[in-house]
């Protein structure tokens, strides 16, 4: 009975196939657009090392940078092993 009423008064939004299409498209484009070239990823890594090294002493070989696509959102995930904290930023200027 409820189903019949829903049909009569229009179905709920999520049911409409256009919304399914939009959501699928959004997800697939997140993946497509994050296929960043290894060259750019490498350049990004180097820049990150440069910036972080101003503040921290890090293990450059252990640095990992990746894209993570979970729960419908894209994230840049970096694992950066810290060797030592630098006491003050100004000393290294």
């Amino acid at each position, binding site marked *: 009975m409820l189903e019949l009423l829903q049909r009569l008064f229009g179905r709920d939004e999520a049911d409409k196939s256009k919304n399914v299409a939009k959501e699928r498209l*959004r997800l*697939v484009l997140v993946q497509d657009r994050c296929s960043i070239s290894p060259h750019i990823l490498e350049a990004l890594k180097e820049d990150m090392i440069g910036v972080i090294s101003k503040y921290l002493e890090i293990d450059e070989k252990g640095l990992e940078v990746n894209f993570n696509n979970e729960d419908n959102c894209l994230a840049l995930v970096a694992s950066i092993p810290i060797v030592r904290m630098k006491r003050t930023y100004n000393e290294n200027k």
Partner: protein
Amino acid sequence: MGEVIVITSGKGGVGKTTTVANIGTGLAKEGYSVVLVDTDIGLRNLDVVLGLENRIVYDIVDVANGHCRLKQALIRDKRLESLYLLPAAQTKDKTAVTEEQMKELCQKLKEDFDYVIIDCPAGIEQGFKNAIAGADRAVVVTTPEVAAVRDADRVIGLLEAAGLNEPDLIINRLRPDMVKQGNMMDIDDIIDILAVDLLGVVPEDEMIVISTNKGEPAVLDSRSNAGEAYRNIAKRITGEDIPIMLLEANEGIMALFKRLIGRKK
């Protein structure tokens, strides 16, 4: 000096060739001199859509390789004096022309024509690279489907990487009745996702099939809805400010009746 516009899509079958034929014819009807270039070497179609298939002597590969002069390969349209076609070769493949040759060809053509419209092959390989090599601006055609919009997104990225920034979008084969029911993505949905400027929306129209059967572009038919949309697109390309047609769902008597006695499933 004219302008070179490439019509591309990534995905096949969304209506690139039909769009090229109609925009080109529309521009020529407005009084501009136009040449349509078919770069889909090996799968030439634009000649058939324009009804010029029986007039081909030389093609784009002959011109690129110097087997004939450019003027010899250009075919004049049956209906409009200022419209010309440079056909693709049917027997060669996409590597028969280089990007350099395409740039040179476009340069020459835009000296003589107001608009050079390039019909790009589907895909993103060499044929695509050739087609966009000499272009000043790009138009991306898509349909309101997941696969077509996805490919359009990829192509927009590649166009921008090649220096063809801010391509315009044409949404083809929109069905207002399905949009109204919530069963087809709407203009705003697609523009929102692709983040580009909209050049026009062409409704699904049986007249396109009929006009393609006859080899007469729908833009010349005043009764065709799609033709009307293409006429507007042609005018927008020339810089006229024409609002996007608001497509009303054309429901017909039966649908109206069904709605009165109860909602359709």
